[in-house]
């Protein structure tokens, strides 16, 4: 979707946080929302179930400053993580410019991580994306919990493409902005259309 308006010198990009249910996607977005000054963020939209699980998506528009004269606006989305919301996840991936895969580091969630990652690959392929060309950052979340998978194992099982990866404790903000900055940089570097 990345949309560059060369006349007004504006860039709009779509970043999607993907991953298994209860992995911390919404927590990432909420932390970013809390720490961003009011003039630089739009209204955060959360479409939740009654028990505060993501139903359709969370959305946070971030108006950052300028980079080389271009005003940048990032649209951050999360997908619903629960397995039965596959149709919604497909819709939200349309027009994606960059991905953050938020994995739950707990041993008992490894199967869910793998299922979600394979679903992501399938959904991207179904929509005609070349997986090697979509900027992606991996986030190993919940590193503060007991019984977690070693980072090397997460890398081995989930990050065969050697995408940039960050350890995180999203509930405390650790790793949240490191992840966002990396995916933002990758997305900006991937925008087609040089200056005339």
């Amino acid at each position, binding site marked *: *979707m990345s*949309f*560059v*308006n060369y*006349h*007004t010198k504006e*860039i*709009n990009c*779509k970043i999607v946080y993907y991953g298994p249910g209860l992995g911390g996607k919404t927590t990432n977005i909420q932390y*970013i929302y809390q*720490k*961003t*000054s*009011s*003039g*630089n*963020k*739009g*209204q*955060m*939209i959360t479409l939740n179930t009654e028990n505060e699980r993501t139903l*359709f*998506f969370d*959305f946070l*528009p*971030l*108006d*950052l*400053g*300028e*980079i*080389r004269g*271009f005003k*940048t*606006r990032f*649209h951050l*989305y999360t997908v619903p993580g629960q397995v039965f919301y596959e*149709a*919604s996840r*497909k*819709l*939200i991936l*349309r*027009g994606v410019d960059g991905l953050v895969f938020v994995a739950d580091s707990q041993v008992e969630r490894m199967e869910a991580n793998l299922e979600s990652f394979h679903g992501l690959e399938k959904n991207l392929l179904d929509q005609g994306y070349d997986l090697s060309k979509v900027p992606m950052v991996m986030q190993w979340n919940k590193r503060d919990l007991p019984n977690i998978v070693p980072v090397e194992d997460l890398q081995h099982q989930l990050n065969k493409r050697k995408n940039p990866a960050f350890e995180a404790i999203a509930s405390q903000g650790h790793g949240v*902005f490191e992840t*966002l*900055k990396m995916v*933002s*940089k990758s997305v*900006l*570097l*991937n*925008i*087609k*259309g*040089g*200056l*005339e």
Partner: protein
Amino acid sequence: MKAVTVTEKVKQLLDPKLGTIKARLFVTREDGITIYDSVQDNTTTSVAALVSGVWQASEALMNLVYEQNDVKEFRLGFDTSSQGIYLFPFNLTGKRYFLGAIYHECLNPGQLKRQIALIKEEMERSFETEPLPKKPVGSMRQGYLFQDISDAEIDRLFSLGGI
């Protein structure tokens, strides 16, 4: 001044209508990017994202039940007798956009919907009769917008965002 982009042309067409349309009027791209909004505040971007989400979900729902449904002629309404949302898809320069209105305390929603439909037709006509100037051959932008971006530039970008 002659418009050179869709955004400029839509603005030229819609700004004069605001005096007669008692609703928030907006145009969004299919992917949720704002092209025009009569209200510019911290809800502007979110309106466009939700419009896109609502439309895509509705389209998927329709196709789920009646596969291969042609949604070109569809409209979307969410309303009571005095308030609601109304969305019209339309095509400009080969791409799909939505013209929408959000209204409340409206005495005659039927009339408002008719006004929106006429504006949509006027926009389509205008783009047909006065197309945007074509870019000269060979002016297509090649390669990537940025060849390199340093970590310091990204840090600066985010610090400007108050982060």
